[in-house]
């Protein structure tokens, strides 16, 4: 009959084995030698003359940008071309700009134009380059009780407000949320009825919530395309002019900190507006849908 004592007779050797295993894994060599050359560098001269280790570019961006998958295509290209590594920190829009303001990152890639303008006006960034744009869409229940379907975002919201239909908002001061707020302003309605729900979360969870609650929601197209396969919700307002969502890259002011890699950040901005990157952006698709519209492509591309 198993007793507590039987337990401990094989627990000890197992614990020992596991500890040894973990120790072994921990001691295994594997980091790129670039990191170790720091420790071995005995020269007292300026580090600019030493052998170039792998350069790192710290970029802050939003979770929806990361979730769209576009950066998984663009960043490796840049890394290869410039022999560097990009550390992407994906957080909320507000946090991304805050990190840039604090000088903790070299560049920031967001889609919140008014916040970006304030950022530049305050002198936190030295370069601002529009890169691409896409559109928000308003999705909602298939039955569409508010009859919001159409191409006019403002009138859609007016109808939703009039009927006090269930609407899920991000409520987190993100680019999406700010766009939503400006639309409510244009629609001259204040969203404060019981069924107006603020999730305080990212786009993904907010969409899931809207789907679970069968509610209307304003979402960026990237997240929508990625997640909506099994949704009950359907897109109702698409391609509306006032749903434009522009993206830009900002090079953080190097005066903030000596650790800021302004050169590499500028190269990053150059890359994003280059033909190569713009073409990659134009061709990027999710489930057969083109997601972004490049802003800096000189020649007319078909479609």
């Amino acid at each position, binding site marked *: 009959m198993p007793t507590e004592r039987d337990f401990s007779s094989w627990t000890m050797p197992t614990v020992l084995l596991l500890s040894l295993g973990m120790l072994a894994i921990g001691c295994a060599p594997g980091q790129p030698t670039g990191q170790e050359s720091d420790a071995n560098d005995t020269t007292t001269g300026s580090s600019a003359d030493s052998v170039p280790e792998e350069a790192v570019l710290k970029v802050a961006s939003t979770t929806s940008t990361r979730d769209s998958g576009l950066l998984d295509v663009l960043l490796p290209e840049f890394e290869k071309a410039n022999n560097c590594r990009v550390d992407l920190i994906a957080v909320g829009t*507000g946090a991304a700009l805050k990190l840039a303001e604090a000088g903790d990152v070299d560049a920031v890639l967001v889609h919140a134009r008014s916040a970006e303008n304030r950022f530049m006006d305050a002198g936190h960034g030295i370069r601002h380059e529009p890169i691409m744009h896409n559109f928000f869409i308003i999705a909602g229940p298939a039955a569409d009780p508010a009859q919001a379907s159409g191409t006019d975002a403002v009138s859609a919201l007016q109808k939703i407000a009039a009927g006090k239909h269930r609407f899920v908002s991000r409520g987190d001061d993100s680019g999406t949320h700010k766009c939503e707020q400006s639309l409510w302003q244009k629609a001259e309605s204040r969203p404060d009825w019981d069924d107006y729900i603020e999730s305080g979360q990212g786009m993904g969870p907010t969409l899931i919530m809207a789907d*679970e609650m069968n509610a209307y929601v304003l979402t960026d197209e990237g997240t929508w395309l990625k997640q909506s396969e099994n949704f009950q919700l359907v897109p109702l307002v698409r391609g509306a002019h006032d749903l434009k969502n522009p993206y830009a890259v900002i090079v953080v002011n190097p005066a903030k900190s000596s650790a800021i890699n302004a050169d590499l950040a500028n190269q990053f901005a150059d890359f994003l507006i280059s033909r190569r990157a713009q073409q990659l952006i134009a061709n990027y698709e999710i489930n057969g849908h083109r997601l972004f519209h490049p802003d800096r492509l000189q020649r007319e591309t078909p479609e």
Partner: protein
Amino acid sequence: MIREGILEALQLLLRLDASVIDAATRSLWVSIVAVVTAGAVGISVGLLLARKRFPGRSVLVLLFRVGMSVPTVLIGLLCYGLLSRRGTLGELELLYTPTAIILGEFFLALPIVATLTHGAISRLDQRVFETARTLGAGTIQRAMTYLREARLAIMLAVLTAFSRCFTELGIAMMVGGNITGRTRTLTTATALETARGEFASGVAMSVILLSIAMLVTLAIALLSREAVEPVS
């Protein structure tokens, strides 16, 4: 940032900021209900595991011990799977309600209480069991006696479970949804402030959370003062 956070926390408290009070009471309510129910079940389970022999007992003990290490995000995910419209309990429409958070935190607290109660009772002096039995105590009287003899350790188990529930984020976020005025807790509010870039506000929320946790810990310590036996 931390100093600003503490100052902001004081300001929020002094002017009785409505959203903070809302988040704080919700955090408290949800954690307390979860811990009370998990406590009742967990203490019974711990008692059983310690005193009753049955096939598979050591496997159960192991499972509950491992259960103490389950990440809250995982519990949140599993509960979401249960409560989602497409899930088994979807019809109950519990998703994004405080009840859903209570459910998740129940599963967070249960292994903690069960395992620590089992440990506490197993470690009781053998004479406790022999004395209770020889004096003729029935099952219930014996159970009550063991709990009373181990009550300090069991109280600590409940306090541990409460602390874990009160400060968790993964469950509240996933199945609660951080909805303003409905399912926002102190932890999800902190996450939101952080995502917004309002780091000082995030710290403020956390300071308030820590203060409440400290008050609860003190309260339990005072209540259990009688339980502390002087070294004889």
